[in-house]
């Protein structure tokens, strides 16, 4: 999957989980908080993203993920896990 394709898929995925935001209004710069995800919603979003993208969101680094771009960046830097 190239980076543009990944970006589209992550944005579509986040839009599917956001309660009131359309994918067309989400960019890499969008902050999760501004899309309606509080801190607990964000951990749930990342848990759901594990299944969707085959990546484990684990460790200290995960707590710093604030924007859509942060998530895309994290996925590109972590290879899919065998268990997912």
């Amino acid at each position, binding site marked *: 999957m190239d980076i543009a394709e990944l970006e589209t898929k992550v944005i579509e995925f986040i839009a599917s989980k956001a*309660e009131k935001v359309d994918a067309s209004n989400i960019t890499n710069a969008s902050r999760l908080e501004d899309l309606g995800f509080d801190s*607990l*919603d964000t951990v*749930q979003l990342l*848990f759901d993203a*594990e299944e969707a993208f085959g990546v484990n*969101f*684990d460790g200290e680094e995960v707590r710093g993920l604030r924007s859509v771009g942060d998530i895309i960046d994290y996925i590109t830097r972590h290879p899919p896990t065998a*268990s*997912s």
Partner: protein
Amino acid sequence: MRVVVTGMGIVSPIGIGVDQFWNAAINGVSGISSIQSFDASNQHSRIAGEINEFNPACFLSAKQVTQTDRFTQLALHAANQAMADAGGLDNYQPRRLAVSLGSGMGGFSTFESSATRKLQNKSIPPFSVPRIMANSAAAWIATQFGLKGVNLTCSTACSSGANAIGMALDLLRSGKADAVVTGGAEACVLPLTMTGFEALQALSINFNADPVRASRPFAQGRDGFVMGEGAGILILEKEEEAIKRGARMYAQLAGYGCACDATHIVAPDMDGQVAAMQAAIDDAGIMPDQVDYINAHATSTPLGDVIETNAIKQLLGEHAWEIAISATKSMVGHSIGASAAIGSIATIMSLHTGTIHPTINLDVADPQCDLNYTPNRAIQKKVQVGMCNAFGFGGNNASLVFTTL
């Protein structure tokens, strides 16, 4: 001060909503079938009373579904019905509105699924803990309806629902609340839970090919209980307040008694059962010979049904043969912490309608079970005093007495 029931809601294997449940109950419909919710081919007991038509997305958002275990979802659905039935509790101050709920296992569905993931070295859902915790259902009910007073959860295994309702009565009598949403919820038709009860040889294993005949309290050939699931919710208020706001009143909750065997962690004991029933009768201020009907705990285990029969004889003497008894579990199975809430609704409906639902699968009774268990067909009988029994692991016995108004 009298405490009355002004609303009821139920989710059960034989019906969602009191009307559907009661119509099925008086017609002797069984809700027991082969397990649908998971592959039970490796279980010894492959049958259960499941609620197959239940869809939480009908009344919860996708996010709420994610954040709740099935036992909470069942409780919320029953609470929605009960609150609507009572016409809402807007007359009261939110801080005076309490919840008292029972559950034996809490969010065990989430526990099993999250534990499975952890053992596979996978991450677990972030809401695992708030889904599993036993007070999750009570907290969600409070949140949904803005009930800001006392919020209690009772976990005493199979008697959880009865103790929760009894605790609600105590809250109203002591002045700690003006109205209480109470009852029980359980969702443990699950591989680990069932295997645990199988290991104790507590579940029926001889009727996998004929599920509707498996739950057969007091009958010959019974070989253990059938796992069930469900929720039953009551709205309790003080009678004078209920009258003031023009609420419909189904019955009075007149007495609550509990007693611990303090003998064995799982084996039932007659003395403890007699003590709980006697305490409930004393609390109601009535005499034992005024009891017209008993909704028995009657799980369909070989030992338990005989001991309860003996306990009723000990309590009532000759009067034991004059009353009607029935076992709701013959139709819905044993829903652990929800069972006494469901049994209470059956008891209240008997008082309210003058019909007693049957104990099904009772063609030939165990010779040691020789009372009138209302075999196979409902009967018409004016009931003024009905008692609901619940006896749980831990030697925990609880009885509730409901009376007509």
